[in-house]
């Protein structure tokens, strides 16, 4: 399965819905999307990963890169994920401390800290 990406704006937040597999082949597309959003002035991103079937360290690297970019503009990058197998990758790499991870897009959009 390839990667699917779509975006939606909610107030000052931009939701990036990701579906499929994020790996060494598809991660560059996600990177391009995040870079484009930041270049266009979207600095508060919510990446909805509920449709993601597979995530590897290349994908983690892209998300960390996205976080660095939005932080340079005092922005935020929040994740929405309830899937244990995806959350596990964030836990073993210690990235649960780096990314705010929410259970729903609504919760992520409402978060302010």
């Amino acid at each position, binding site marked *: 399965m390839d990667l699917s990406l779509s975006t939606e704006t909610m107030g000052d937040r931009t939701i990036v819905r990701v579906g499929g597999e994020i*790996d*060494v*082949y598809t991660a560059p597309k996600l990177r391009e999307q995040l870079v484009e959003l930041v270049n266009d002035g979207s600095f508060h991103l919510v990446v909805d990963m509920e449709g993601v079937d597979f995530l*590897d*360290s290349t994908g*983690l*690297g892209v998300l960390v890169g996205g976080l660095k970019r939005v932080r340079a503009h005092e922005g935020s990058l929040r994740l929405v994920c309830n899937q244990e197998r995806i959350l596990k990758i964030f836990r*073993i*790499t210690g990235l649960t401390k780096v990314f705010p991870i929410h259970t729903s897009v609504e919760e992520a959009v409402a978060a302010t800290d």
Partner: protein
Amino acid sequence: MATVELRFSALPEHVRTARLVAAAVARRAGVDEAVLDEVRLAVGEACTRAVGLHQHGGISAPVKVLLIEEEKLFSIEVGDEAPHATPGRGASGDGPGTDVETEEDEMGLAVISGLVDDVEVSAGEQGGSIRMRWPTVPPATLLA
């Protein structure tokens, strides 16, 4: 000889194929269903790393994956042909890209070592390999 041996051109698009094949062979070998996600992720990380090493080193040789069914064990060995001389390889002229590549390489290894209890990473001038092993359950349990 390996139960299944896979060789693929060092291109990112083939890593998914390696993951799928490894997971299918692992399932048949009797690796617990609950662990198959880990097998898929670990072999993907190892292949991603090998592809990166071949691409950055300009190595045209394929990446090799050995899937080996042993008694009560299933092993996967991912081999690359990149010479691993010293940690500071590719020093001058590579620019800032080298650091990013090293970081990604380390992140991949961090994921593998976090996922797999039994893992050996070896590297030499002829290339390197990552060998990972998982226990298998007897077929009787599978049928139950």
